[in-house]
């Protein structure tokens, strides 16, 4: 039986508290009106960029808005040039203020989603192992179940954020904007608030229901004399995967694609999935190594680690494949309504955008291709940390350019978001792991898994 050490528990609690304070600070320190924003911008200009900043910021701003589909009102204004000069200035400041107020929301959402998707991805990995009747992985089932213990709090927080974020994230929730925008009116059959909330709640219930059922059956199998709980889990996993592939698709459209409601890409949902899946497998590997190190997983050997590392490697490549597929096709055809997505990311987030590729693709492919290295814990940890940092940036780039546009920063609020959710994640996963024996007794493939050598 693993117990969450008081040291780790304390660390988690401190992380949560420090993170919470930082997040509160983030929300308080946003400018609440245009005067404050002007002061902030002025201080910024003197502090960092000197006198030329004002001019530069205006040009980036205009540019930013022309390509920033999300806040269609401002960009429409530019495009049609129907507004007088003064009015333009006002709407410009209003738009800027809105983006600044969105910053803490976005910072919170990036971290909230990042840790939530790890739990969800781990659940999917778990279901796949059941459905595939994998013979190597049953020894890891309790570990994976422990990681998914974060699903319930994580998913509730994420759903609350997307519901209450309102126009901070979703311009289509702004009625005035929709009234002026024919394209958004056309989409209102799908993008309307009640339906949006209903969908979010359906996802929430469906995912957590499977987590609950699977965990219950898995524990029941440990004491059962027949294989009934296992068979039930097999069936539940099949249906969960079916449910998941559909809800994940619509989830990605709802929560991310609709941040820039004029933009669309058919691949998008699968791309989000790839990021989710590779991060989850990485975390499973990290938790496994941690528990093995402190002596709780005697039945796990380095072949299991090897397999996890192979999955980390393979899905890093798979993520890159989807990333590149989406990028190449949009870049190649260069259709104005689609390229906006990449233009803002390349122009305003250049280093992150291409740096992420190094972290998510080049590093894993170089570090994890050697089969001996895949059995060395510290090596896999190193690769795992790189992958997780890379996918945090991936989520950052999914959200920030669409919500705050060019005014992104990585400061107290963003770090506080990471700390808060990391603390919560450690706490939930740790208590989840501590609930039951880590030996998944009764699983029909357990002996095969224990004897597994590659």
């Amino acid at each position, binding site marked *: 039986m693993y117990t969450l050490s008081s040291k780790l528990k304390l660390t988690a609690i401190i992380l949560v508290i420090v993170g919470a304070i930082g997040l509160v600070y983030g929300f308080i320190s946003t400018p609440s009106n245009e005067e404050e924003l002007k002061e902030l911008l002025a201080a910024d200009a003197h502090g960092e960029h000197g006198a030329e900043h004002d001019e530069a910021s205006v040009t980036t701003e205009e540019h930013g808005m022309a390509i920033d589909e999300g806040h269609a009102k401002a960009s429409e204004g530019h495009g049609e040039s129907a507004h007088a000069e003064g009015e333009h200035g006002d709407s410009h400041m209003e738009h800027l203020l809105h983006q600044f107020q969105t910053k803490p929301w976005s910072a919170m959402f990036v971290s909230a989603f990042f840790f939530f998707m790890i739990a969800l991805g781990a659940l999917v990995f778990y279901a796949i192992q059941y459905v*595939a*009747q994998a*013979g*190597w992985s049953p020894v890891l089932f309790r570990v994976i179940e422990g990681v998914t213990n974060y699903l319930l709090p994580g998913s509730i927080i994420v759903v609350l954020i997307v519901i209450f974020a309102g126009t901070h994230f979703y311009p289509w929730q702004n009625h005035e904007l929709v009234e002026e925008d*024919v*394209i958004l009116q*056309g*989409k209102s059959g*799908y993008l309307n608030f009640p339906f949006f909330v209903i969908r979010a709640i359906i996802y929430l219930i469906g995912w957590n229901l499977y987590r609950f059922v699977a965990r219950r059956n898995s524990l029941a199998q440990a004491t059962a004399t027949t*294989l009934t709980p296992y068979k039930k889990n097999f069936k539940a996993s099949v249906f969960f995967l*079916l449910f998941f*592939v*559909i809800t994940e*698709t619509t989830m990605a*459209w709802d929560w991310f694609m609709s941040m820039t409601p004029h933009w*669309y*890409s*058919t*691949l*998008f*949902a*699968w791309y989000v999935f790839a990021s989710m899946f590779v991060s989850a497998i990485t975390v499973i590997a990290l938790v496994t190594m941690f528990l093995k190190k402190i002596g709780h997983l005697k039945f796990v050997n380095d072949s299991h680690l090897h397999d996890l590392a192979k999955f980390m490697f393979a899905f890093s*490549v798979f993520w890159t*494949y*989807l990333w590149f*597929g*989406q990028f*190449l*096709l*949009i870049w*190649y*055809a260069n*259709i104005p309504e689609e390229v906006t997505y990449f233009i803002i990311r390349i122009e305003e987030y250049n280093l992150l955008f291409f740096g992420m590729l190094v972290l998510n693709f080049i590093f894993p492919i170089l570090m994890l291709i050697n089969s001996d290295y895949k059995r060395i814990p510290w090596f896999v940890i190193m690769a795992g940390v790189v992958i997780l940092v890379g996918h945090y940036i991936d989520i950052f780039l999914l959200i920030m350019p669409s919500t705050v546009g060019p005014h992104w920063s990585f400061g107290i609020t963003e770090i506080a978001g990471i700390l808060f959710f990391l603390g919560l994640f450690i706490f939930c996963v740790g208590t989840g792991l501590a609930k039951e024996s880590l030996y998944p007794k009764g699983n*029909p*493939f357990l*002996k*095969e898994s224990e*004897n*597994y*050598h*590659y």
Partner: protein
Amino acid sequence: MSSHYEAPIREPLVTGEKTYHDISVEVGAPVLGRANKSWYIVFTIALIAFLWGLGCIIYTVSTGIGVWGLNKTIGWAWDITNFVWWVGIGHAGTLISAVLLLFRQKWRMAVNRSAEAMTIFAVVQAGLFPIIHMGRPWLAYWVLPIPNQFGSLWVNFNSPLLWDVFAISTYLSVSLVFWWTGLLPDFAMLRDRTTNEFQKKIYGILSFGWSGRVKDWQRFEEVSLVLAGLATPLVLSVHTIVSFDFATSVVPGWHSTIFPPYFVAGAIFSGFAMVQTLLIIMRKVVNLQDYITLLHIEYMNKVILLTGGIVSVAYITEFFIGWYSGTSYENYTYLSFGAATGPYAWAFWALIVCNFVVPLTLWVKKLRRNILWTFIVALVINIGMWFERFDIIVIDLSKGRTPSSWAMFSPTFVDIGVFIGTIGFFFVLFLLYARTFPVIAQAEVKTILKSSGEYYKNLRAKHGDDVAHHVDNDP
């Protein structure tokens, strides 16, 4: 590689009381025996179809592409439909031999040889179309970046059609090498078993002097694994590049970012359907029911279900995003309300019924394990996936951005003849293969006999998991 213990819950992969010797005999039988009458009948039919297709090809090339039903709006129709269809079929072979090897699926061992053969023969058919659909196929070598007398006039590497050249040729060569390395121990088995001097000579050459030493086996395994690791990204990228032919364009319906993974899923879907079609007949004709069991068929049906599900999600995505985009042009794409009600509605519904509705029946375990039904479903999917490609190509082209250039397509007998010819050619090759090659990778099946054979599983059930007492006594 993996341990010898296998959970008793797993169903056996080799039924009957087989010994190593039985495997050699039963796999060698079709090659060492003589062909029967029905083989000759089927072969003749296939040969006639092939020759007819060859005639159509010669007629096309010598007269001009105008003998096909193409028009100024629809410049691609059956040619590229068939090309994508054949390439897609080929993908199952690589999936079985490479991806399933990476996932250590023991059941692949009974089906990989024939699936790879199917890959190679299908890619050969596919490879015909990029050449014969050219207006001046005798200048086809211009697609290769070779130094020349035109001031070293080069190709433009920006075209997906050029990427196709590299993708398909690499794919064919890697598949061929992968297949052939796997064949070495099996050719050696035939060389050693035949009494016919001529055959001995031939299989002696084909087996490259394989003698099965430990070091050879060790390297053999390593090569297989490396090739599997390379073939997996290859198989994904090949059909991805095929999908780029469409997705990089700005044609409504073609320009869609989901095409790369969706085409790959569709390729595996159709490829597995073709494997089912072929293997269900083959296992019966050459008496290999003990190796290609009902379980194998069920597993392949599950892969069909999975990839069919992925394809269905892609259909829904295409349909939804078409609406969501708010672009009026999207209403004429192959998966749109316009397509469902327009002049090609029959093709649209053929796709929905064949690829979505009919495969859903495989969710029922009884039907999934019913050989006849599987065969029917597999045929239906082959037809459906042909329609998918036809719909993507023709429906999307038929109603483009300018209504004045809207057009319909109808094939001529030459279009149809060429397609029939490739089917004939495919079966000519496959039938010859089935008579001369070991259709089951016997060396691989022998490695799983003791862990997954029915006899040994029963022994373990009776005497416990300790394998020591029956390791060396064959039944």
